[in-house]
């Protein structure tokens, strides 16, 4: 299984602020990977570094086998869609298609025209006058027309209504099906429910660090909620990694990452949903490595 993206201790500092700190991730080819994290966690920075639009201040990144570089062959394999949906507002979609044809060796103009026609988006109208959802679809179609091997999408559905969002994700998954394993997607987003149906891999950033990275199925299988009477959690902590703890007067709920079977019969083991997993790890910041204690309703 080859890796589409591999970074090692990747860092990006801006004067006093560290946007990314020693990030090590691996995204296998053919995955749709969710890039998740609170605002300011470094998602945009990571995507821009991978696309070659910015340079790291530390560590290395390997994208499709090599470091991101100013090389037409490399640029042709990467599709990057920035958060603000960058298009020339005064140009029409057809203009953009012509621009793409001139600036890319592989260019599937028919793909753009077909997709936009299916979505009833006019090709001869200035892009600036289209709605947000329509612009996002135009931008995505133009990015796909490059026939890239890696798609980096920075919060493309953030500003879209539910229908536009669904259309966008449908276009994306259809392209994935057509590519038959030749396409890898990294999609940053806040909406976990969308992620669960579309993504099979996740990279979670919080506080400029990587908190979680791996196949979603594997991660969900590796994590469990342990619900049981409130007591000393040290024995559990010795064996497993405790990610998050909620205690009431009588009960403890621990979110653990399994390191072997759970042998304490007083705990009830329950499955963890993706949303619960994401929320738990997103709460983890640089200072508290893993353990976060909340006490709820003493005496309830």
């Amino acid at each position, binding site marked *: 299984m080859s890796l589409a993206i591999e970074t090692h201790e990747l860092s990006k500092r801006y004067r006093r602020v560290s946007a990314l700190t020693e990030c090590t991730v691996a995204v296998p080819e053919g995955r749709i990977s969710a890039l998740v994290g609170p605002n300011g966690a470094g998602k945009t920075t990571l995507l*821009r570094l991978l696309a070659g*639009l*910015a340079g790291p201040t530390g560590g290395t990144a390997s994208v499709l086998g090599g470091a991101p570089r100013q090389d037409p062959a490399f*640029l042709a394999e990467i599709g990057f869609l*920035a958060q*603000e949906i960058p298009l020339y507002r005064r140009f029409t979609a057809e203009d953009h298609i012509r621009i793409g044809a*001139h*600036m890319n060796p592989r260019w599937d103009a028919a793909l753009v025209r077909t997709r936009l026609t299916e979505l009833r988006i006019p090709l001869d109208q200035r892009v600036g006058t289209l709605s947000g959802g329509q612009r996002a679809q135009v931008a995505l179609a133009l990015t796909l027309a490059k026939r890239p091997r890696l798609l980096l999408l920075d919060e493309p559905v953030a500003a879209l209504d539910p229908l536009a969002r669904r259309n966008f994700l449908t276009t994306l998954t259809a392209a994935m099906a057509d590519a038959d394993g030749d396409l890898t997607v990294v999609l940053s987003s806040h909406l976990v429910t969308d992620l669960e149906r579309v993504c099979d891999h996740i990279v979670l950033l919080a506080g400029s660090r990587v908190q979680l990275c791996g196949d979603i199925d594997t991660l969900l299988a590796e994590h469990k909620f342990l619900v049981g009477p409130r007591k000393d959690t040290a024995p559990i902590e010795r064996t497993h990694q405790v990610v998050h703890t909620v205690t009431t007067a009588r009960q403890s709920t621990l979110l653990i990452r399994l390191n072997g079977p759970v042998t304490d019969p007083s705990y009830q083991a329950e499955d963890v949903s993706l949303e619960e997993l994401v929320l738990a790890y997103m709460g983890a910041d640089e200072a508290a490595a893993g353990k976060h204690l909340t006490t709820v309703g003493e005496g309830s």
Partner: protein
Amino acid sequence: MTWLVWRQYRAQAAIAAVLLAAAAAVILADGFQLASHWHSILINCAGNTGCSQQASLVNGMLGDLPYLSLIVPAVLGILWGAPLVAHELETRTSDFAWAQSVTRTRWLTVKAGWLLLAAAACGGIITALTTWWSGPDNAQHASAFNPGHFDTQGIVPVGYAVFAMALGIAAGTVTRRSVPAIAVALGGFIVLRLVISDFIRQHYMTAVTTYYDVAGSFTPRGQAWVLAQGGVSTTGRVVATGWGDLYPALPAVCQRLLPGTPTAKNTSLNSVFSCMRAHGWRGFATYQPASRYWPFQGIETGIYVLLAAALIAVTFVVIRTKDA
């Protein structure tokens, strides 16, 4: 890529074409009228010195044309060069352009290349028209090196136009914002032009100094550029022309001979001159000969083109190394 440049700048190209055509029409019309008037004067006045006064009345309607042809290409170069990179960065369309399969270097090469070429072409057309139009004016006045003339004819306007464009592009790339870039580029352009024309131009080649008898006069041949003229003594003191400046520098014995001073009795200027001659005074003129007109044009154009090249080199470095 070239198509993209055209598509982005076709409005500006249209405006420039219209302006150029209008300017050409007006200049040609006025210039033809000017030339025929001048021609008829030359014929009528052949050998007749009294005609010189009539000749000085020959003035095109576009008296200030040279200054306009100086300002407009420079302003347009800065106005259209500054947004080249800055506007793309401001509106984030750079995220689209640089996500295609064209490297940033190639992107800049094509865009800047066409714009610089256009600047040179426009500058060339304007200067050709202005030079032709100035024919009669040049024939009358020994003013080839004067700022209003040197800057607006020959080949230097091409250098200015190219430099203005390069300055605009570089300013836009460094400031990443169109409006500050325009301000910086305009300011920088004005300052540099003034500094070069007022302080540096005269030193392109070592000026020639000719000495002559203190009683005589000397005018360099043709349309030379006189930098300084006056009297010089054996001690090397250089004084400007005019008795007001000369008098205080003379030895007392010569001063007393100056007609009009209380001590002068039956003297004439010639006695003053003989006295000065005896004391080793000579007249001098430091000038750039008329024959250096084209070399100077070439040097100045070369300077501006080199500056433009340096600015473009800086632009390339910034584009390649800074984060998008």
